[in-house]
């Protein structure tokens, strides 16, 4: 007896996430792994892990991809639906918390706010030219303090009197932290101050002009950080909801979308893609002054698709957008 399952893959700047659900939207398998410079390899490895972990009777009936590498990975694995991460995250949040009015999603390099009303996305905003207040920054600061990112969160909870840290700019926040450290502030207060600065920055920049109403769902890699959760709760004077699959919500959303699309025959290329040598090559299109660098994804001699052009002339094999 085979059971139908739907796979969601979210490949972002920092992590590659995989979620496998059954037709009742129950999570059968999930993985969160850091991208090691090569998104294709990390997806191959994650798929291999999944293959070992799940019973053979599961049959993949639909695949959705999301995240900044959604088009590339969509072509590599053979996705049925390729969706932007804003819609994917909203899908997942609304599935678990239909009453949510606001989603905060803080990932490796992106931070986003999505405004929901009556179970529908009505507005969104994304950080534009500044990465202060995203996961990468916390990562680098944790490294500088020789803490793991988990320890950083735990440490922050110890603080009773958080130090004020300048949070507008990552570089200046770092100088300020060093300064506070040199003047003798305890580490847990500095770390909590850092979390507060990040939250302040997020609320005043990304959320500028948006009406933030509870219930608020906080998701994305950074939502695992307990210091950040505490800072949000304090700043908003309300308890933010951490959904069940907070780290992999994008992938969960993509899986839900694939399940909803329910393709009659999936385009998934099968587990054999894990063992194959998939490479990319690039060429410059000289048809217009844009001179785009077009990336072609090759499985040996077979072209899986192309991406990277500014127009959609070269895009093949992958249909971005798709029906919702």
């Amino acid at each position, binding site marked *: 007896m085979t059971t139908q399952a739907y796979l969601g893959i979210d490949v972002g700047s920092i992590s590659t996430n995989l979620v496998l659900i059954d037709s009742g939207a129950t999570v059968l398998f999930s993985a969160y792994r850091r991208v090691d410079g090569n998104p294709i390899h990390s997806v191959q490895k994650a798929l291999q892990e999944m293959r070992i972990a799940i019973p053979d009777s599961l049959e993949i009936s639909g695949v959705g991809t999301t995240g900044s590498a959604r088009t590339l990975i969509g072509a590599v694995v053979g996705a049925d639906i390729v969706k932007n991460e804003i819609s994917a995250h909203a899908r997942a949040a609304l599935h678990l918390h239909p009453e949510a009015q606001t989603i905060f999603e803080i990932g490796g390099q992106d931070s986003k706010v999505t405004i929901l009303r009556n179970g*529908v996305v*009505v507005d*969104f905003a994304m950080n534009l030219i500044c990465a202060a207040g995203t996961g990468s920054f916390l990562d680098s600061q944790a490294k500088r303090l020789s803490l793991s990112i988990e320890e950083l969160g735990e440490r922050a909870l110890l603080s009773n009197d958080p130090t004020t840290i300048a949070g507008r700019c990552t570089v200046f926040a770092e100088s300020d932290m060093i300064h506070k450290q040199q003047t003798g502030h305890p580490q847990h207060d500095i770390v909590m101050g850092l979390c507060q600065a990040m939250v302040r920055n997020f609320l005043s920049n990304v959320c500028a002009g948006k009406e933030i109403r509870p219930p608020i769902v906080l998701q994305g890699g950074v939502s695992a950080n307990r210091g950040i959760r505490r800072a949000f709760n304090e700043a908003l004077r309300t308890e933010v909801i951490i959904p069940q699959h907070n780290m992999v919500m994008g992938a969960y959303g993509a899986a839900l979308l694939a399940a909803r699309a329910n393709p009659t025959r999936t385009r998934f290329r099968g587990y054999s893609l894990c063992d194959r040598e998939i490479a990319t090559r690039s060429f410059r299109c000289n048809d217009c*002054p844009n001179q785009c660098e077009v990336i072609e994804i090759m499985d040996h001699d077979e072209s899986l698709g192309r991406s990277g052009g*500014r127009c959609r002339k070269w895009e093949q094999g992958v249909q*971005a*957008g798709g029906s919702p």
Partner: protein
Amino acid sequence: MTALAIPPWGNYSIALAASVECLRVTPWSTRSTTPEIMKLGAEASPEFSCLAFKATTGYFIKAAMEGVEYGVMVNSMGTCRLRYYRELQQKILKDRGLSLFIFGLGYDGIKPPLIRHFDPTMGDFLRCSARAFFKVHAVDSIEKLAWETRARELHTGDTTRLMNACLKDLDNARTVPAIRAVSRGVPARFRTVPTDAAARPLKIGLLGEASILRDSYLNHNLEETLGSLGVEVRNFFLLGNEMAKIFNIGLWSPESRGALTRLARPYLKSRVGGHALESVAYTLRCAREQYDGVIHVSPTGCMPEISIRPILRKISQDHSIPILELSFDEHSSHVGVVTRLEAFADILRERRKQASS
């Protein structure tokens, strides 16, 4: 023959190039900025100058490096920093030891400096002006058909290919009768594109700063990206309308300055500068004409367009029309732009579904 650099202004570059032939110069023009030009411009420009300044500066630098002697630059419209761009660019060129001379295109006596310098005969001047006029209108009609057709095309890319072919024919047409023949043939050519007649695509108004609206490199190919997402756009910067506005022709047309000022008055009583007043007026028109949404584009740090953002938000609330604000600079990431457009289209589609149920 001497050459004259005309900064890219989307498909209108074809018409602009035709207009300077009477000066007996070779037009040095392209339809959009290139990565190389952008790089040159960004290096030479002050960090906080707007994207349009960086792009045009880069264009003049590249032209000068290729041995072009002259250039033209708009320099007196509105009250934004654009007024001073020509002077500043001339200085930047001089500091780099480049000798291209830029003519200002503002009002400077009945005969602008450009005309005074090249002194074309009256006959030549009128002939070229007529050609440019008809080319502008031909471009406008090609654009309009492309917006409609692209959102309904069955095979991605058909419309763009046809559009480029039409523009090429237009570029090659040298006489007024030839230009008009191309124009007349355009609607029939667009009807050959296989489309889904039953489709009811989303309709989005594009408005904001003119060079971003028009240069497909600067706006990350907004029109085409939206078109392939099944969205019919209307770009509110049409040079035909703009010319009428500048020369005050068609005082009673809905596109005239007076009509737009009246339309915007409940929200904005000042002209602000640039195309800010137009942005407010057209947003209201989109709301009135039941567009699904509006995308407001501006270069990062654009004074006029940023000044009116709070007004647009108010209009968005009052008239319940979603507005996506996009600002562009040379660091804008393409993936980021596409993600926002896709998410915005998703929102609009969901709204429609809710409204109909």
